[in-house]
């Protein structure tokens, strides 16, 4: 009782109440501003529907089953879609929304990162490739223009299934490490694939655009990932005779090769573990002209292949897991 009396006498409640009132008022104002900011101009026809709980013009949806290593990451499971949505596959589907704005990607034998639970696939290595599918679900009948960005987080081989007491943050490999840079340069993402050739490389982000999107309709989007086995598949011209008799061929379009060569020259530490290769730009240019060119030097070609393979070995030895985060952002907001 002594204690109670003590506080009662010395606490000027009126000040606390005043502070509370002011702060709550400010908080309410912030909330309204946020709401106004993040909720787009609603079209007149949408009426009260525009003020839905999430205030977002779109959601993301995935289909399939849980991934093999899903218990290594923190993200919600998502929820089944509410109501009828056109364009989604039958079977198990989850969407973002009130069940979580970041959800785990569902996978299948068609759509995976070497991590679908029901296949013999157990991770990725040089020579692996695949497709990841997701759906953009329009929540309003409107033009959708989203910025889709891809980010990766790497973990050491010590990462393990997480529980309420442990996450894997202690095993994150820093983004500025050699491992992270090399992985970014060796595991590549593309928007398109035609006859086994990948094109439109995604360096950081790309734009998803659907003019006249219909409310409650899902739009399927694929992204492709590859971890090339040898550098020939990236640099030599598509029809080079050096591919003759080999069990692999050119894997990216010649236009993407030019983009990649520029990137390789500018950020060589993302592609070669040995970052002191003299005349790298010269060698890449030479190889990309192809073996039919009179100046072609097979010494360059062999040297860079060796460096590429050493880098793959470095990644495989030091990196345990790769987490892929896809973020879709309503880029129209910048102009709203």
């Amino acid at each position, binding site marked *: 009782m*002594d*204690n109670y009396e*003590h*506080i009662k006498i*010395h*606490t*000027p409640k009126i000040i*606390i109440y005043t*502070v*509370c009132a002011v*702060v709550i008022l*400010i*908080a309410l104002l*912030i909330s309204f501003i*946020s*709401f106004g*900011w*993040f909720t787009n101009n609603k079209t007149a026809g949408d009426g009260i529907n525009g003020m839905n709980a*999430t*205030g977002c*013009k*779109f*959601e*993301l949806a*995935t289909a399939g089953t849980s991934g093999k*290593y*899903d218990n290594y*990451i923190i993200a919600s499971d998502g929820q089944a879609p509410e109501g009828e949505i056109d364009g989604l596959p039958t079977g198990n589907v989850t969407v*973002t929304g009130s069940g979580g*704005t*970041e*959800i*785990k990607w569902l*996978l299948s034998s068609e759509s995976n*990162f*070497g*991590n679908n639970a029901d296949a013999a696939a*157990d*991770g*990725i*290595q*040089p020579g692996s490739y695949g497709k*990841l599918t*997701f759906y953009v679900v329009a929540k309003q009948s409107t033009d959708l223009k989203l910025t889709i960005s891809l980010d990766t987080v*790497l973990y050491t081989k010590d990462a393990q299934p997480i529980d309420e007491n442990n996450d894997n943050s202690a095993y994150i490999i820093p983004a500025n490490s050699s491992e992270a840079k090399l992985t970014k340069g060796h595991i590549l993402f593309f928007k398109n694939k035609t006859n086994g050739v990948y094109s439109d490389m995604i360096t950081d982000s790309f734009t998803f655009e659907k003019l006249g999107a219909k409310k409650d309709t899902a739009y399927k989007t694929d992204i492709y990932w590859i971890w090339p086995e040898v550098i020939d598949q990236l640099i030599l011209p598509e029809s080079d005779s050096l591919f003759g008799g080999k069990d692999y061929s050119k894997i990216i379009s010649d236009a993407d090769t030019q983009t990649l060569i520029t990137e390789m020259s500018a950020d060589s530490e993302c592609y070669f573990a040995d970052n002191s290769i003299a005349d790298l730009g010269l060698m890449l240019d030479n190889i990309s002209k192809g073996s039919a060119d009179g100046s072609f030097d097979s010494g360059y070609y062999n040297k860079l292949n060796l460096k590429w393979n050493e880098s793959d*070995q470095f*990644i*495989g*030895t030091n*990196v*345990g*897991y*790769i*987490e*892929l*985060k896809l973020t*879709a*952002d*309503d880029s129209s*907001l910048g102009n709203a």
Partner: protein
Amino acid sequence: MNKKLDIKPGILRLTNVIVLLALILTAAVTAFAWFTNERKLDTITKINSPVALKIGAGAKEDSSNIDMGGIDISDQSGKKSFVFCVYSDESVGKYKIQLAHTTNIAFTYTIYAANEGETALPDSVVYVDESDVSHYYTKSGALSGGYLNMDENTGIANGTYHEKTYGAYGSEFVQKNAEPLYWQSSPAITPVSAGKNFTDYYILEIRWDSDKVTNNKETDMVYLTAGMV
């Protein structure tokens, strides 16, 4: 006296305000998440080491220990054997062994699968490792396979792989014994312990007919390769 009584009222007031601010911040952040127009998908996969098939000497030592120099053809046995191994730290489906050599000296080359034994047997090939420990290997059957470019009559290389070896450099400029012979195991070999890491031992036996060879005459280049198929 209870310790709580020592807390000064000023600190309590401060604590109250901080708690309130924290609550309000939490509310604001929640509101942000609620109204944000950002949605995310998240997945994770395992990174595997590239599957590497390696060639080593006996006792799985470095391949630089496969020393084929100094064959003395006055050796009455008429042959010399070298132990090597093909191994991987990963599971490998199937692989092939290839042998390429020039034909300056009239040697015959045969590769045998081998088993490591605990003790020396009469036909054991001994490999002494870097720590001076002897390892004993015995042949268990010649590898099936064949030369891809041997001229049956002369025993030297025909032109089948000339272009692959020398490119546009014409065969008229290459001494016939310098043109390498290519031998390849066939069918592809399944590792002894399939489905996991393995070490398969082999013995490369080089034989000669003492009437046809002389010491200190010539040099041959021998390449051993193993590749996954």
